C-alpha cells in the first residue's frame, strides 16, 4: 500500500478541481469500492486523498428546466427515496432498492458507481435506459469547465472510462421522461441482497397508441462494459408488442450480449438469462 502524503476535504467544487488539476489524487466518496480495492491491492492510494463528500451541493438532486440532475456524491439511498426520482424515474428507485444492502446504499455514491465502471454496475443500467449523460468538471485555464458525455459512450472497458484524471463527475443528467414512459429493471444473482449481478437488464420506452417507441435497452455483465442493446431496440422500435415481436427481440438480445465464462456464471447461462429477462421485462411493459 502506498502512503498518502496529503488529505483534503474541499467544501467547494472549485477547490476540488484545483486539487485534481495538480495530479496524483485519489477521490474518496462513499468508500464502498475504494476501501476493499485498496485492501486487496487492486488499487493504490495516490499522494493526495481527496474526500468529495463535503463539497457543497454535490449530492443535490434537482430539476433544471426539463432535465433531472443528480449530483455525483448523491448516495444510492438519496436517489431511492427522493421525491423527484420517485415521481419521474421510479425505475431508478426500483434499481436502487436492489443495490447491495441498506448499509452500502447509505454510503455508496452514484458518481462512484459510474466511475468504477464495472460491467455489472447496477445503477448504470437504468441510467442508460433513461438516456443519461455524465457531466465532467475540470479546472482549466483558471475557471471551471464542464463537458457532457452520453453515458453509452462513457465506458471504454472494465474499470475504464473517458474521464480524465483532472475531471470530477459532477452530475448525471437525464431528460425528464414523458408521461408515457415505462421502464423496468431486472438483475440476477444467487441471493437478492449484496449480489454482484450475473446479468442485469433494463428496458424502457414510451407506449403510445399501443406502440413501443423511443425504446432503450441496456445490459450489464454481458460484455466488457455496461452496454446498449441496439439490435433489441431496433427489433422493438415502433412495434406493437405481439408474441412474434417479443420473440424477435429475445433473439436480438442474445445477439447484443457477448458474455464470457467467469467465476459468477457461464457464458451459456448468461445468454439464457438475457433471453428470459428480455421476455419478462417486455411482458411487464405489456402489463403496464
Amino acid at each position, binding site marked *: 500500500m502506498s502512503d*498518502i502524503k496529503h488529505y483534503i476535504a474541499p467544501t467547494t467544487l472549485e477547490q476540488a478541481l484545483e486539487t485534481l488539476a495538480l495530479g496524483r489524487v485519489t477521490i474518496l466518496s462513499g468508500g*464502498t469500492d475504494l*476501501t476493499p480495492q485498496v485492501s486487496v491491492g487492486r488499487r493504490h492510494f495516490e499522494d493526495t486523498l481527496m474526500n468529495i463528500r463535503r463539497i457543497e451541493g454535490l449530492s443535490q438532486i434537482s430539476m433544471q428546466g426539463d432535465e433531472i440532475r443528480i449530483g455525483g456524491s448523491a448516495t444510492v439511498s438519496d436517489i431511492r427515496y427522493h421525491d423527484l426520482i420517485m415521481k419521474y424515474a421510479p425505475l431508478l428507485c426500483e434499481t436502487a432498492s436492489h443495490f447491495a444492502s441498506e*448499509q452500502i446504499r447509505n454510503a455508496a455514491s452514484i458518481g462512484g458507481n459510474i466511475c468504477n465502471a464495472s460491467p455489472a454496475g447496477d445503477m448504470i443500467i437504468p441510467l442508460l435506459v433513461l438516456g443519461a449523460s455524465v457531466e465532467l468538471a475540470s479546472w482549466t485555464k483558471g475557471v471551471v469547465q464542464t463537458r457532457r458525455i452520453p453515458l453509452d459512450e462513457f465506458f471504454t472497458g472494465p474499470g475504464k472510462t473517458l474521464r480524465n484524471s483532472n475531471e470530477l463527475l459532477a452530475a448525471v443528467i437525464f431528460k425528464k421522461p414523458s408521461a408515457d414512459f415505462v421502464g423496468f429493471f431486472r438483475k440476477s444473482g444467487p441471493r437478492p441482497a449484496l449480489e454482484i449481478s450475473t446479468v442485469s437488464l433494463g428496458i424502457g420506452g414510451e407506449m403510445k397508441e399501443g406502440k413501443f417507441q423511443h425504446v432503450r435497452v441496456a445490459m450489464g455483465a454481458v460484455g466488457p462494459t455496461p452496454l446498449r442493446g441496439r439490435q433489441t431496440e431496433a427489433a422493438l422500435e415502433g412495434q406493437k408488442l405481439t408474441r412474434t415481436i417479443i420473440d424477435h427481440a429475445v433473439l436480438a438480445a442474445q445477439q447484443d450480449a457477448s458474455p464470457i465464462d467467469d467465476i459468477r456464471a457461464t457464458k451459456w447461462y448468461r445468454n439464457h438469462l438475457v433471453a428470459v429477462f428480455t421476455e419478462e421485462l417486455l411482458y411487464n411493459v405489456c402489463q403496464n
Partner: protein
Amino acid sequence: MSVKTKLNFTLNSRPVNIEVPVDMTVLNLFRDFLDLKGTKYACGEGECGACTIEVDGKTINSCLMMAVDLQDRDVLTIEGLQKGNMLHPMQQAFVDHGAVQCGFCMPGMIIQANYLVKQNPSLTREEMKRGLEGNICRCTGYTKVLDAVAAVVGLKG
C-alpha cells in the same frame, strides 16, 4: 506511513478529538485506537454487516468508511445503546426471544434493527427481512431475530 490528520466527532454522545492516519478505516479506529470492541470485524468488505454503525442517523459498514470522513459527524455504536445497567429495548428483545447464539453478528444486527425501526416504526416482517439483508448470521437462521424485531414494533408472532 500515511500522514495523520486531526479529527473531531461525536461518539455515543461524547466528543472525540483524536489524530488518525488518513488511510485508516472507522472500524480500525474504533477497535484498535478507541478500544471499542463491540463493533466486529468479520469479512472486511461490506458483505456481512458485523461492523454496522450509525452515522448521522444512517447505518453504514464501518469497515468500508474512512475514519477521516467522521469529521463533525455523530456516531452511534452498540456501546451507546445501553443506558446505565438498562439494556436498550432492542437488545432486551433479542435476549428475550433467544435471538443470540454465538453473538458475533449481534452488535451489527441490533444497530441495523434499531435503525430500521427508527426509520419506520410500523415495519412489516417483509420490510425487516429486506432491511436486514446486509447482516449475515451463521447460527440463528434469522427467525428469532425477526421475532425480536417484530416484538419491538409490536407485531404479533
